[in-house]
């Protein structure tokens, strides 16, 4: 933690299932496990409630990382929610590379309500990873210089872009 203390906090969004990981985070807190504080938790009723677009929207809006945590497979409070979630989240993770968004900025995992220690480990590791990656680049160009560079690079591709037909 000491190295991280010197860095400024990054914006990490956590979508946590109410029935497991949210409780797990609580367990970790009650047990006074030390955790980094970059994560902003959003409690959801089930990992199956998480539309992958929540994650995309967070990343495009400037989140430096997004962590999803639900119940272990076979342990869903609603029997099947996390089975569907697993497929959706895996596809999102696999899709990110084509967009130029570093797929390491998004992770999903399973933590139960009793796994306080595991929660501490997950959140510490993920936060460390995001700090290693640093702040995410803005999708919208910020300055006129950035716009100009992009536009010039685009113009260099000219009228005969080979990437479609």
């Amino acid at each position, binding site marked *: 933690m000491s190295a991280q203390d010197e860095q400024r906090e990054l914006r990490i969004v956590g979508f946590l299932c109410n029935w497991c990981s949210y409780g797990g985070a609580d367990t970790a807190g009650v047990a006074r496990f030390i955790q980094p504080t970059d994560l902003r938790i959003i409690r959801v009723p089930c990992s199956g409630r998480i539309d*992958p*677009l929540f994650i*995309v*929207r967070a990343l*495009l*809006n400037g989140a430096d990382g997004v962590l999803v945590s639900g119940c272990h*497979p*076979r342990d869903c409070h609603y029997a*099947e929610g996390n*089975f*569907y979630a*697993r*497929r*959706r989240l*895996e*596809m*999102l993770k*696999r*899709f990110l*590379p*084509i*967009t*130029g*968004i*570093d797929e390491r900025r998004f*992770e*999903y*995992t*399973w933590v139960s309500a009793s796994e306080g220690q*595991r929660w501490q*480990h*997950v959140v510490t*590791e993920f936060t460390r990873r995001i700090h290693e990656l640093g702040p995410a*680049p*803005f*999708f*919208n*160009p910020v300055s006129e210089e950035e716009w100009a560079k*992009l*536009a010039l*690079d*685009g113009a260099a591709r000219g*009228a*005969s*872009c*080979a*990437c*479609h*037909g």
Partner: protein
Amino acid sequence: MSGEVSQLEELKAAIRGQLDSLDCVIGWEQGYDPLHATPLFIRSEADLERLTISPLAVHNPATYTTGFKGKKIGLVVRGCHSRSVIELLNEKLIERDEVVLFGLCCDGVVSQRKIRAALPADPGFVEAVELGKDELHITVAGEQATLKLQEVLADKCLHCAYPDPLVADVLIGEKHAPRQAASPACQDAFEALGNEEKLAFWQDTMSRCIRCYACRNVCPMCVCQDHCIATSRDHLWMSQENTPVENFMFQMIHVSHLTGRCTECGECERACPVDIPLMLLRRYMNKQVREVFGHQAGIALDKTPPLLTFQVEEARIKERDW
């Protein structure tokens, strides 16, 4: 050429035989100039006379099917179009007994972008087009140009594994020998770029998107139509702001809602008025779906899209260690 003429006559005869029992049959006719076709809605013998099946006839008629719910219509379909129909059937968005499929074994359709690049003058100045067996003879701004059909075929056709309709009530033409799908070189080159370069590409490319939603409305699988979350007033998924990030957000919506459903007909990219290479995204996602679920949308009836089902033990999703 004679082959195509006899195929056209065969197709017309097949449609003529069923026209009375159908609300309409969707095919193609010549559009606003000799280089462009446009969808044709056949309701009478006179309409039928205008039918064309040349390689200029590119539009996917499956796009219109959901607008005819409860009515019985006919569709002239190429291989890729039939995949869209199958996917719509699999998702119970249309009924099999409400569509009659006139299948064409397809040798590919043109890419207007490639034609533009190959012509000596702007294709807007086209005066005449003559279709040869393997080439297009185009008169443009007083100049004659001969383009090899193979060189102006759409990318999706060059790498098409399903040129013949996978479902049809009437099949016109000769079936092709089995083919292997491949990904175009530009796709591999783009995927090999680093994150920074890819991000910069989308930032610039998305800055020219005007959010006309042609890509969405032309997509046969975009069935929410008037109720798309992108234009919903209740949940503001997107700002009206026309910035690269908002424009890209829409593409994310489109891609995520097509995961495991996209039949790679290429209509989104064809329809884009500002030439955004959307198939880069589609082909990439489809590849992921194939790898993880062994699934390809629209190649077999009675399959469930992979995100509408699950397996308790997923064979190809590795639980990550923490």
